[in-house]
Structure formats: structure tokens, C-alpha cells
């Protein structure tokens, strides 16, 4: 039995009951904080303060949600809309600019193609966060601090996206297809729209999901530029909910739960694509 197991690559070795037990444990640990967020979000103060703390959901969700949405100076409703605007704008723009640039790098002949692509890859290694002080000053000059523009503009196109699209387009679209369309008299932009875009829908889905998740969850820069304004994103609003001298856990976690729900839905709907995107990204 054991010698048969050993003669195989791990990929061909069936999981044992221990594998499944281990994975189940990992899954429970992964899910527990999100589950417990929901438990506290539905509980009363007494349930939160009891010992042991509440482990099954209560019936106070509506009460807690009402408090979150009506809390002064937190602008929770607006913050959700703001997060949606920012995440959608950044995602749409990233998909457009990255696929356009990826198409040029993968299929078009122009001087400096390789050098420019190398620079794109090089910029992947620059930790942007370290420039936040100067970025804040730049936004001040532009008059954008405290507005959603300050959060949207830096994310409009990413080096990773350009790189990912270039790799995908390079494999997915035969050169002859582009040449044939050109012989038919189509301009580059038309080829992009009628040949490239339909062929790269799976890659657009993957990059779109990764971008949306990252943008929705971004905390540091939105906190710096939007804190104290009337236009927070939901992450900034969460930090406001948790600040102050007397913090109400059930209210904080009710807010956190609301801000998490859209992403759990995304994971349920697009989990396959997300897994694929992360795993493909690792190989390049």
C-alpha cells in the first residue's frame, strides 16, 4: 500500500482522510472570523459581554444596522456608494488601459516595444506606498485631496495589469488574426474592439475581480486623503466607527459585516476566476 503511494507524484496521490480533515480545519479557521463578525453584528450588548461570548447569531441585526447607518459623522451609506464608485471606476479604467497597452506590447511592432515593456516590469518592484507623503502634496496642488478623484486617479492603470494582459493576449490571439483584420482595412482600435476584446473576456474577468477586491479593500491611502471629510470610502468609515472613547463592538462589526458582504458575494460568484488569476499570476 505505502509503496504504491510512493511511486506516484503528489498530483496522482489521492487525498487521505487526514488531508480532508486538515483542509476542513483550515476552512473553518478561514471562515470563523467572518462568521463571528456576523454573530456580533446580530447580537445585543449583553450577548457580546457575556461569558462565553456569543457564538450563534442573535436577532439584533436590524437594530445594529440602523445604528450604523444613522451614526453621526460616519456617513456610512455615502461611504458604501463612494466605495462602489471608486472600485467600479478603477476597475473599468484598469481593464481598458491595461488591455489596450497589453495588446500593443503583445502584437504591435513599434520601436522600443521591448524596452518599454521592461520598464513596466521594473515599476512592479517600486513600493508605491512609500511615496504617500509626496503623493499627498501632489494631490494638494491638484486640489484633489478629500475628493474621490484622489483615490481613483492613482489606480487607473497598473503595471501588473499591463503585464498580465500582455501575457494573455500573446497566447490567446494568433498573429494571423490581427494581420488578416489589418488587410481588411481595419484600424488598430477597431481590431482591438472586434478581435481582441472578445477573445480576452476570461482575462478581463480575472483582472477585474483582482482589481475590484484590491480597490474596495484599500485602507491606508484613502484614510490619509479622505479622513475627516464628508466623502469617506467604506474602509475609512469603518475606522471612524471604531474610533472614539466608547466603542460599541456590535455596531463596529455590523458595519464591518456590511462592507464585507459584497466581497463574499464576489467570491461566491467569481471564485473560480479569482483562483485562476492568482495561480496564473504566480507562474509568470
Amino acid at each position, binding site marked *: 500500500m505505502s509503496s504504491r503511494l510512493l511511486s506516484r507524484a503528489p498530483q*496522482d496521490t489521492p487525498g487521505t482522510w487526514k488531508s480532508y480533515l486538515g483542509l476542513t480545519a483550515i476552512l473553518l479557521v478561514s471562515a470563523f472570523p467572518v462568521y463571528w463578525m456576523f454573530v456580533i453584528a446580530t447580537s445585543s450588548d449583553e450577548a457580546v459581554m457575556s461569558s462565553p461570548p456569543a457564538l450563534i447569531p442573535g436577532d439584533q441585526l436590524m437594530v445594529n444596522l440602523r445604528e450604523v447607518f444613522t451614526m453621526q459623522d460616519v456617513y456610512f451609506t455615502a461611504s458604501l456608494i463612494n466605495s462602489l464608485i471608486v472600485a467600479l471606476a478603477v476597475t473599468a479604467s484598469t481593464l481598458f488601459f491595461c488591455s489596450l497597452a497589453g495588446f500593443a506590447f503583445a502584437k504591435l511592432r513599434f520601436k522600443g516595444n521591448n524596452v518599454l515593456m521592461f520598464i513596466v516590469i521594473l515599476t512592479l518592484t517600486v513600493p508605491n506606498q512609500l511615496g504617500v507623503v509626496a503623493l499627498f502634496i*501632489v494631490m494638494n496642488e491638484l486640489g484633489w485631496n478629500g475628493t474621490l478623484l484622489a483615490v481613483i486617479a492613482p489606480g487607473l492603470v497598473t503595471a501588473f495589469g499591463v503585464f498580465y494582459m500582455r501575457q494573455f493576449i500573446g497566447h490567446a490571439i494568433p498573429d494571423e488574426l490581427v494581420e488578416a483584420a489589418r488587410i481588411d*482595412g481595419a484600424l488598430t482600435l477597431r481590431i482591438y474592439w472586434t478581435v481582441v476584446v472578445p477573445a480576452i473576456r476570461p482575462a478581463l474577468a480575472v483582472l477585474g475581480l483582482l482589481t475590484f477586491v484590491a480597490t474596495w479593500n484599500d485602507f491606508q491611502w484613502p484614510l490619509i486623503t479622505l479622513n475627516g471629510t464628508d466623502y469617506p470610502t467604506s474602509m475609512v468609515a469603518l*475606522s471612524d466607527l471604531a474610533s*472614539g472613547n466608547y466603542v460599541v463592538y456590535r455596531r463596529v462589526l455590523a458595519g464591518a459585516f456590511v462592507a464585507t458582504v459584497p466581497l463574499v458575494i464576489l467570491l461566491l460568484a467569481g471564485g473560480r476566476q479569482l483562483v485562476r488569476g*492568482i495561480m496564473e499570476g504566480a507562474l509568470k
Partner: protein
Amino acid sequence: MALTDVRVAHTEEPKHAPPKRPKFWLHRFDTKTFPYLMVAPFFVLFAIFGLFPLLFNAVVSLRHWHLIDKEKNGWVGLDNFTKLASDTDFWDALVNTFGIFILSTVPQLLIALMIANVLNRKLRGATFWRIGILLPYVTPVAASSLVFAVFFSRDNGLANWFLSLVGFGQEQPLDWRAGTWSSWIAIAVMVNWKWIGYNALLYLSAMQAIPKDVYEAAAVDGASPWRQLWKITVPMIQPVVLFTVILSTIGGLQLFTEPMLFDENPAQANGGYDHQWRTIAQLIYRVGWSDLNLGYAAAMSWALFLIILIVAGINALATRRLGGGK
């Protein structure tokens, strides 16, 4: 085959109108200039919001740059850096950052490796497991940090309740935020929870690219699964290990959200009442946007940048040696 597809798709158009050749100048513009316009948005936006701030940061760090109290603003040479060298707040934050970084990176990558090794087997519901371990990755780090902040509270926190189940801390509950180590551990738990699944998928991806015959050759020598993992799998996926080490170095040394929201009053960016878990990124935020001293915050950013470069370099070398040496 691709060619015929195109012809089929276009058969109807020419009947009504023969394909129009674009005018010469238009064709020239389209093939010579237009590609540059397609890649330009990336370079323009990166120049404005990525590269320029990073370089301009150096200028700011050589100036006194106060946001409101502007009278003293101006060139100060290396004053910000000499101040930094003797600033105990900075060095304390550096120690905290490294402590939390090690507690969060080492278990994170080791556990991810174990999970990937299990996921690499032939499993029922492979996709289900893979999606499941991504839940922490999509959960907003602000939201999960707040859950853990409640989880690790001294009174009625779930962490202490679990500890009491195994007979620990019954006479006096552990005050996670009070101690240096306990607060570091609590924050490291948040980071580990968030990134283990993501890294496991990266490792899994690399493991699945290993040719099967590599294992079959080794099986003749009677390698146990454990030896198989360390002697074959890990060396084979070494480039991805290197990638995750560098990625978690860059991310770990800039840790911000978790320590921020672990505070009982995050707005103050204290990192504990004795700053026992305040990280450098948090200190930069405090100096820049509470004290409004942007020049000094910029100097700290540069210092952090250099530290990250050095540590990432060391880690890269160490990882390369670990994987390739034997």
C-alpha cells in the same frame, strides 16, 4: 484555421462595399504612432502618481514642510535624517515592525507550504477547497482587523475564552494589548490569517508545474512524502518561494492597517499606550497627518524604503541559498 474564421466573418461586408483602404497618412499614423498612444496612459499615470512622488519624497525630506504652520518651511539639509538617527520613537517602531514581521511571515509561508502540499494531491472538490481558503484574502483587512481586535479583547474576548478552556489565564485574563509580545502575536495572527491561503495558491500553482517523472525517479530511492516535500518539491518551486518571500517582506515591513485598528482608539495611531506595537508605517502616518510634519515623515519613508531594499535583498539571497545549495 484562424484565417478562415476571419474570412467567414467578413464575407458579407464586401458585397455592399469593397474594403476601404485607410488613407496613407491615417495608415501611417495608425501603425507608427498609435501604439505609443496605447501604452502612454500607463507611463503618464505612473510618472505622475508613482515615480514623481517617490522622487519628490527626497526633496520633501530635505525640507521643513509643515502643513499648517508654514513659517519655518524651507531647506534644512539633512536635519530630518540626523533627527531620525536619534529618535527613539523611530527605532522602537523599527523593532516592533521587525518583531511583527517575523512572527507573521515565517508561520505564514510555512503553513501555506503545508496547505499547498495537501491541495496538490488528487482531491475531491479541489476547486471548492481552493476557493474556500481565499475567503480571508477577499475579506477587507480593515474589517477582519476589527473582528480580531474584539477577538483579542481582555474582557469577554474569545481568544481568552479559548485559553481558559485549556486551563490558561483563569485567575487573571490575558491583556493582549498591554504586553509587547502578546500584542505582536495578536497582530501576527491577523496577518497570517489574511495571507496563508493566498500564498498556498501561489505554491500550489508552482507545484503543479513540476513534471511527474521527477517524483517517480525519486520514489525508487524510497523517499517518504515528508522528504519528498523538502527534497524535491521545495527546491523545484524555489522561484515562487523567493517571490513570496520578497512580496511578504515588502508588505510586512509596511504593515499599517492591522496595528492601526488593533488600537482601542484608532484615530490616534498610538500603537498601544506605550507604543509597544506601533509600526513604522503607523509612525509615518502619525508624524505626517497628526503632527502635520510632512518633511520628517518623508525622511522616515526614505529610511523605510532603504530598509526594505536591504531586507528584501538579504531574504532573496538567503532563500536562493536554501533552495539551490543542497
